[in-house]
């Protein structure tokens, strides 16, 4: 069946920080650009980021981009690509200043410069001591940034398609990407959106886990789309557990609490991070803190009736600091944990937060795959930026504040690269005759299935499986069993049915389509984790407790076709400075 089509120079899927930073660059250059989003742009999950944007402005303590680069490489447990990390850290001050010029309401110092707070894993002089690098708007930095970017896009007259869900990539026989098929939720219409450049900025997929800080919309749509189109996913075993999710609720409590001086306590009131990370203590990197918390709980030093959480204490900061710098945290603690942090500590547990892996790209945001002997051959017409991409700046573990930075730097870089490639002068390639077939078949199956498995139940089973088999500590038995279960779940996903067959704003259909994406991310994660027999960053294997650079200093690539794995080398060569060779990682 032939779909109605619309044409643009550039099409962006996702209106979070990365998508809107890219769209801004394109719209201000005068290109015809459309941004597709499942939700109104300011509802994208960037809105929930709290603590800050990392940039070596040096406003409050001496700093340099080289130190930031070193911290990021060390944080990544040497799995990050050093060219991309250098690029990001060098660009950081510029993208933060731009955001300020756009109107971002950063907190200020008495001299009028941007306020910066300390954050985990960020240090002065190559690990010597903590540094103030996180540029913050109280504890609502993501909210302030997302609204500022939306506002600036309104000024640039960017065209938004709000409450549209992208379904599948359109690829022709040459392998070039020519756009996407998409569902307009309000009408139920399916269209082909043609573009000379398609940028995926669909964010994370934390909803594959049962306990997650992520929003409901974080279902890995871009990852599912590329996996179905034959593009591999990179480093999917690396998922960050944020140390401080509210116990039971999963809601995020920013690392900025510890940046401002908050500390973690076990059941005997001990500041246990002093034992695990004598130098940076509570501000060690997230993988280290999460593992330490898990260890404390495992060894019986957890708090509460079931000894299953630790406490985040901040009352010693005093009401002024809490009300001024951490007002939304106080709101969350009161609402979701029944405690006022001015008086009492918050019960917290490590909670799934961020996907370090994703769609493999280069520093221009171009999607790259192994082809014809090259590990990084460009897929024409396809870009990915932000959390859905793996460029890779975060490697095996992301530092706090580097996520918002990643969105700004690589959203902008992809926009600039596309502007430089002179799209308006090029013609649209003809769409293949079967452009909409795969999407229409998925929809037809849902329309016709009279009975089958419940989407909610299968989704919950995926989440329970990931939580049980792919947690903070992993081992061969757990993972092998996890792979078997996830593959069984894939078969169940294909047998789901929905009662709602209507067209108008059918959210049951949207959730069923999202499950198609979640399962791809779950498979990629479990299979990649099972295969990697070492511990590095967020992948902690109790059966292989050490990092093994001789065998595993390499990126994983998972292919949906055949559930197959391949590997590619880590780029240890920066753009302009000396490389930082792997060494032991302590905080």
């Amino acid at each position: 069946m032939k779909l109605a089509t619309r044409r643009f120079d550039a099409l962006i899927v996702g209106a979070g920080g990365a998508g809107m930073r890219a769209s801004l660059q394109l719209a201000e250059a005068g290109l015809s650009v459309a941004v597709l989003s499942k939700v109104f742009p300011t509802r994208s999950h960037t809105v929930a980021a709290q603590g800050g944007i990392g940039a070596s402005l040096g406003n409050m303590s001496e700093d340099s981009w080289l130190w930031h680069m070193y911290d990021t490489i060390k944080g990544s447990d040497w799995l990050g690509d050093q060219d991309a990390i250098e690029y990001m850290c060098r660009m950081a001050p510029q993208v933060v200043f731009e955001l300020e010029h756009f109107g971002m309401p950063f907190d200020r110092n008495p001299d009028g410069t941007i306020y910066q707070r300390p954050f985990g894993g960020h240090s002065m002089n190559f690990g010597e001591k903590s540094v103030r690098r996180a540029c913050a708007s109280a504890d609502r930095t993501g909210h302030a940034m997302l609204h500022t970017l939306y506002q600036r896009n309104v000024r640039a007259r960017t065209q938004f398609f709000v409450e549209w869900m992208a379904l599948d990539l359109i690829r022709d026989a040459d392998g070039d990407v020519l756009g996407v098929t998409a569902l307009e939720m309000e009408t139920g219409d399916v269209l082909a959106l043609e573009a000379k450049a398609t940028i995926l900025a669909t964010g994370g997929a934390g909803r594959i886990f049962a306990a997650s800080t992520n929003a409901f919309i974080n279902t890995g749509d871009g990852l599912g789309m590329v996996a179905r189109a034959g593009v591999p996913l990179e480093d999917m075993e690396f998922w960050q557990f944020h140390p401080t999710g509210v116990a039971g609720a999963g809601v995020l409590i920013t690392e900025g609490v510890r940046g401002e001086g908050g500390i973690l306590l076990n059941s005997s009131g001990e500041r246990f991070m002093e034992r695990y990370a004598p130098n940076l203590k509570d501000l060690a990197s997230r993988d280290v803190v999460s593992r330490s918390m898990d260890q404390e709980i495992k060894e019986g030093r957890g708090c509460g009736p079931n000894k299953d959480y630790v406490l985040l204490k901040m009352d010693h900061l005093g009401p002024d600091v809490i009300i001024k710098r951490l007002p939304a945290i106080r709101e969350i603690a009161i609402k979701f944990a029944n405690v006022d942090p001015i008086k009492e500590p918050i019960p917290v547990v490590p909670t799934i937060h961020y996907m370090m892996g994703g769609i493999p790209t280069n520093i221009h945001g171009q999607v790259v795959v192994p082809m014809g002997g090259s590990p990084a051959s460009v897929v024409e017409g396809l870009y990915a930026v932000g959390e859905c991409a793996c460029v890779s700046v975060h490697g095996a573990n992301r530092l706090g504040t580097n996520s918002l930075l990643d969105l700004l730097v690589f959203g902008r870089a992809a926009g600039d690269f596309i502007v430089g490639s002179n799209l308006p002068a090029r013609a649209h390639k003809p769409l293949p005759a079967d452009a909409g077939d795969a999407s229409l078949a998925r929809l037809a199956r849902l329309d016709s299935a009279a009975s089958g498995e419940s989407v909610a139940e299968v989704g919950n089973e995926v989440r329970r499986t990931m939580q049980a088999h792919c947690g903070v500590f992993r081992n061969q038995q757990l993972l092998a069993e996890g792979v078997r279960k996830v593959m069984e779940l894939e078969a169940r996903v294909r047998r789901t049915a929905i009662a709602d067959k209507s067209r108008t704003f059918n959210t049951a259909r949207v959730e069923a389509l999202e499950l198609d994406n979640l399962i791809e991310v779950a498979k990629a994660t479990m299979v990649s984790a099972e295969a990697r027999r070492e511990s590095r960053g967020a992948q902690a294997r109790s059966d292989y407790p050490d990092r093994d650079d001789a065998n595993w200093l390499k990126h994983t690539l998972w292919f949906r076709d055949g559930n197959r794995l391949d590997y590619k080398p880590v780029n240890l060569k920066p753009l302009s400075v000396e490389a930082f060779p792997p060494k032991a990682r302590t905080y």
Partner: protein
Amino acid sequence: MKFRIYRYDPEKDAKPRLQEYDVALDPHDRMLLDALIRVKAVDDTLAFRRSCREGVCGSDAMNINGKNGLACITNLKTLKEPVELRPLPGLPVIRDLIVDMSQFFKQYHSVTPYLVNDVPPPERERLQSPADRDALDGLYECILCACCSTACPSFWWNPDKFVGPAGLLQAYRFLADSRDLAANERLDNLEDPYRLFRCHTIMNCTDVCPKGLNPAYAIERIKDLLVKRTV
């Protein structure tokens, strides 16, 4: 727990109806959104928006037992049964609890909702004193959920002409920003019997804001600025 939920599917229903649900909750279910997800698990035809589930994205605004609020930060313990849920008042209903927010966003877009400052910026940040930055507190935190504007009788009567509390709060957010250079144009844009002056200080906006913001105060400040400009 018992619910009565507004249902309307334009493809099937000639007019809206209230449907009763009685769902078993899990002891961990804390907020109204948790209960709505239980309802949806037994009846997937119920449509509502939701995303962050922590009160920052503004998706799940609805009318809860007669008062506008966000489902994800409304504690179930505070609700009298049966809990009656309706779409936000005053906007066209697309389906069930989902309203068409075009008019709301049109008003937001009408206030030039971005910083205007055409002076070439310095290489680094523009400086702003902590006091000037403090002037933005209580303004920039708006999540555009529309609880306020859809609780405002003046917005119900004139949604096409009255900017409404959410839009006016944002208008003041830029008037209050020491970096913005378009105060006069912004005030010109609002000096109108409808756009600003349909506000009759009923204060429903401030009463329902789930973020504890005070649009009524911002509206008063805009009126003050207009008075100051004329004297």
